[in-house]
Each structure stands twice: as structure tokens, then as C-alpha cells.
């Protein structure tokens, strides 16, 4: 009896410590922007909006959030459309070595946008005139995320009964009509997952925009964040915390919205 009690107390203490480890930074993020002189500790804020005023007056801060949005949404659109088409084809057409191809893609994807390919990617972008352009960055980010996206969405495609498509085919639907009318709506939860995942990925990506965009006006929030220092070279906690809050709100909102709208369930026709 006492031993189980001791065990339980120990267990919950451990959980509490772990939770605190993750909660304290979040609490800081919630409190610091409203504090006039934030430090590294979590304190009750004095509810000032001065920090927000500073951010609004900052020449690049708000623009960078817009840049982040452009990059994230542009990449998400491309990734969703291309991965859906590719995954559909890979799921439905039998080609020898298909699985090997998928795994190879997955492996390579982590290299493409990774540190290892930094120099070649930079050179490639210069040669193609894609340096310092959102389009170029979107293409490169898309390339990096596509393999994993194809891999994920293919599972959803595989789980869709073939009879749905065959049925549409017998009624005379063309392959594109089948994809639009039947496959896409059925795998919509999967597409939503991919879109959210892509946006979150691009939103948090620092290396690629840092590398490929030199114009400060085009930089996304993740890069601008890195420039928020005081004149003395110290991290400017007032601006940093406020900007950090603004930076995280869209992502949190998106998760809530998508999970409410699509859920992640599959309303199938028949039990199998």
C-alpha cells in the first residue's frame, strides 16, 4: 500500500517537473510582452502595451510576418497540390521499385533543405536568378517538404477504397474528375494535415530564408526575430518577447481552426 502510494507520488512529481519545464517558457511568452521591463524570469505583468507600440513602429517586424504568411501559404499550396497528385499516382499505378523510390525520396528530402546542401543550393539559386525572391524560396522549400508530404498523403490514398474510383469511372468520369470529385474530398483530412504541417514547417524555417534572401524587406519573421537586439548587442527582451507572441499566435490559431473544421477523422461509407 505505502509502496504504491510512494510510487504514485514519485510519478506525479516527475510529471509535474516535466510539465513545468515546458510550461514556464510558455508562461514567460504570455507574460513578458505585457511587462515594461521583462527579464528572464516569469513575473506578473504590469499590463503595458508599450512593447506592442514598439513592434508596430519597427520598420520590418510587421512586414516580416506578412512575408512569413506569403512563404508559408505559397509553399503549402504547392506542396498540397503536387503531393496529392504524386501520391495518387504512386498509390494507384504499379511500378517496380515504387517503395524503394519513396524511401529514397524521404531520405533525400532531409538533405535538400538541410545544412549539407547549403552551398550547392545557394549556387543553384544564384545561377537560376532565384536569389532574393520569394518564388525561388517557395520552390526550394516545396522541394524539401514534398517527399515527406507524398509519403504521408500516400497512406491516405492507399486507405481509400479503389471501388470509389472505379464506380466513378464506370459512370464516365475522367481521371481528373475522379481526383476532384472523389479522391480529394475523401482524403481531405490528409490534405489538411499536410497543409498544417507545411505551414508550421515554413513558419519556423530559419536557415533557408536567411541564406537565400538578402533584402531585409523580404525576410520572414523567423529571420527578423534574430535581429532584435539592443544597441549594446544584448537580446532586446521587450521586443523579442512581444514579437515572439505575435509570431506564435497565427500557428496556434491555425491548429485550432483546422482541428475544429476537419478534425482528423474519416467518414467512410462502409465498414471493412
Amino acid at each position: 500500500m505505502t509502496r504504491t502510494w510512494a510510487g504514485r507520488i514519485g510519478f506525479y512529481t516527475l510529471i509535474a517537473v516535466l510539465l513545468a519545464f515546458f510550461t514556464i517558457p510558455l508562461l514567460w511568452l504570455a507574460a513578458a510582452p505585457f511587462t515594461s521591463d521583462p527579464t528572464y524570469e516569469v513575473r506578473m505583468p504590469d499590463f503595458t502595451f508599450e512593447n506592442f507600440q514598439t513592434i508596430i513602429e519597427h520598420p520590418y517586424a510587421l512586414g516580416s510576418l506578412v512575408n512569413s504568411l506569403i512563404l508559408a501559404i505559397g509553399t503549402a499550396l504547392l506542396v498540397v497540390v503536387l503531393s496529392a497528385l504524386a501520391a495518387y499516382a504512386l498509390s494507384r499505378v504499379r511500378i517496380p521499385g515504387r517503395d524503394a523510390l519513396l524511401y529514397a525520396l524521404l531520405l533525400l528530402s532531409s538533405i535538400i533543405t538541410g545544412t549539407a546542401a547549403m552551398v550547392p543550393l545557394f549556387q543553384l539559386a544564384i545561377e537560376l536568378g532565384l536569389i532574393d525572391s520569394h518564388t525561388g524560396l517557395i520552390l526550394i522549400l516545396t522541394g524539401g517538404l514534398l517527399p515527406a508530404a507524398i509519403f504521408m498523403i500516400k497512406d491516405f490514398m492507399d486507405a481509400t477504397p479503389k471501388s470509389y474510383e472505379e464506380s466513378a469511372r464506370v459512370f464516365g468520369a475522367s481521371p481528373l474528375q475522379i481526383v476532384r470529385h472523389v479522391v480529394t474530398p475523401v482524403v481531405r483530412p490528409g490534405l489538411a494535415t499536410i497543409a498544417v504541417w507545411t505551414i508550421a514547417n515554413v513558419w519556423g524555417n530559419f536557415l533557408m530564408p536567411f541564406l537565400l534572401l538578402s533584402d531585409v524587406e523580404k525576410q520572414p519573421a523567423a529571420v527578423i526575430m534574430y535581429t532584435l537586439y539592443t544597441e549594446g548587442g544584448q537580446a532586446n527582451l521587450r521586443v523579442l518577447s512581444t514579437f515572439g507572441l505575435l509570431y506564435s499566435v497565427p500557428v496556434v490559431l491555425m491548429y485550432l481552426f483546422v482541428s475544429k473544421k476537419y478534425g482528423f477523422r474519416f467518414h467512410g461509407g462502409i465498414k471493412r
Partner: protein
Amino acid sequence: MAAIELRGLTKVYPGGVKALDSLDLTVPDGEFFALLGPSGCGKTTLLRTIAGLETATGGAVVIGGRDVTGVQPGGRDIAMVFQDYALFPHMDVSDNIAYPLRIKKVPKAARHAKAAEVGARLGLEQLMDRRPGQLSGGQQQRVALARVMATQAQAFLFDEPLSNLDARLRLEARTFLKKLQRELGVTTVFVTHDQAEALAMADRMAVMEAGHIRQIGTPAEVFQRPANTFVAAFIGSTPMNLLDAVVRGDTLEVAGCKLPVPASAEGLLTEGEKLVYGVRPEYMTYSAQPVDGSLTGGVVILENLGASHLVTLDVAGVLVQAVVPEGHEPALGEQGYAVPRGDRALVYRDGELVTA
């Protein structure tokens, strides 16, 4: 409305599996036709080849006088009900039924009016804005039927239309399907592995085995005169008695008993020939008193079939079954005499029916 004609239809899968071996078959206009066979016999492949979902390796598919062998499924003017009904889970019943019309670019109002009309005919009025996930199996089947009816195709193809329903619903759906097909008069081919279903519903049927058609005929023909021992063993809810026999003069010696040569084989047998004697348990007259020309043995098993009993006799080590009406069932261990009906008993030589 159109006849379906198959000429030398062959389907070989990559890897060399021959699913259909040069099949010839004609389904006349308006007929309700069953493709029956054990699993893996090629019946579903045949249906899918008619639909165009599989491409024929050889031969031709002709629907309504038009060779459609190389035509895409959508251009064949046929409609198909899949085994899982393949209702689109994200569309409501009305959109599901109207989907074929949407492909044909029928305006929205017109196609929903048509869906409502067909839906009402199948008793779906109350369900038109439900999703397939909210329907029972029987309702889903009716939606799938409504959807093919909305196409006004020349021919319908049903893949195991009843196998997703539970046993009681299946009987109801069987009657319903047959009535519907009769009313619509559309040429319909359906696939089933259940011989009772095929016998009950079809106007004519083909029994298939390993890519070949073993017999084509009306349910009565197939039931009463199976063309070979495969069909004989496959058809019937109680299996046919298939007993080794030897010709002795003008009688057959079966399990030590002397039986008259059946009417169908008279004059076609040679002395001393080894054959298989076939008679359905339903075509046996059971008697507790000794009778001439009977299979005689002790009653070893009694099975209740409801309004009748299936009696199994041990005739010199060979098990013979007979159906006995209620009230006349023997006791276990009793000596029984089963007399085959002369006009229903059959003789098979090398597995094929001996007949004039």
C-alpha cells in the same frame, strides 16, 4: 436495353494467370443473368471485363450490337453496383444518386429532380440528405441501385449485390432485386458465389470453374440436369449423391445395390463400364419397407431441415442422403430403403453427363 455478347473472351493477368479462357456467352436483352462459381473461378474478372475495368487479352465484348472491347468503361453505356456499393462518403444520398448525371453535365436542378424521382421509387425519400455513413446496409444498397437506375444505362452489372447484407435482409433484398429487375427490364448480369441466390434470382445462369463456363442454363436446368459432376456438386443446398457405379446388364451396381439405368442414359452405356451415378437427396423416395431398386442401409445421421429431414444411410460403407418429409422421419439405426426417381437420376462418364 441491349444484349451482351462475349466472343472468345480471354483474360491473362501479368504473370501468366489465365483468369478467363476463351469464353463465349450471350445474355439476351432484358435477361437477369447470374455468374456463379466458387471464389477464384474468374466470375468477378468476367464482370469487370464486361464493365471495362479490366482489359480483355483476347476476344470481344459486344453490348447492344456495338463492339466495346477497346472502349473505356464510361463509354460502354453500362452501370455497375460494387460489392461495397462504393457510395461516395462525402456526398449525401441525393448527390450520390445524381453523380452519374453530374458527369453527363445535366444541370443541377434537373439531376436532383431525377435523383428525387428515382429515390422515391426505392423508398429513399426520407433519406435524401443523409450521408452513406448514416445508412444501414440495406439502405446503402438501395442508394447504389438508385444510382445505377439514374444512369438509364443499357445494361446493369452487379458484383455480389447481397453479400454485404445480413442473412435476413439478404432474403428480402433478393426478392426486391428480382422484382426491380423485372419492372425495369434492363439486361442485368450479377456475380454471386451463393448457388441459392443464383437459383432464386436468375432467369439464366452460368456456372464457372477456373476461367471456364461449365454450364449455362435456366436455374431449373442447372439444378435438375447438371452437365458435369462439378456443377452437380456445386449446386443445391444439400449436395447431390455422387456414387461410383458399374454397368451390369440393364442395371447399375451402386454400393452393392442394383438400380435401374436412369431414363436419360438408356441405351448409351456399355457393359462393365465404370460411371458415376448422381441423384439429389430431394429426388429420393424413402421407405422403411424393402423396395426393389433401392439403396439400402442403416440410418446413421438425421438432420432437421425444417419442413423435412435429411437422412443419411450407410450403404455398404458409402454414405447416401435422402430428404424425407416431416412426419415420416425414421429412427436412428433403423434399416432404410431409398429409391431414386428414375427420371431425375443421372449418370456421369468421366465427369460429364451421359445424355442423348
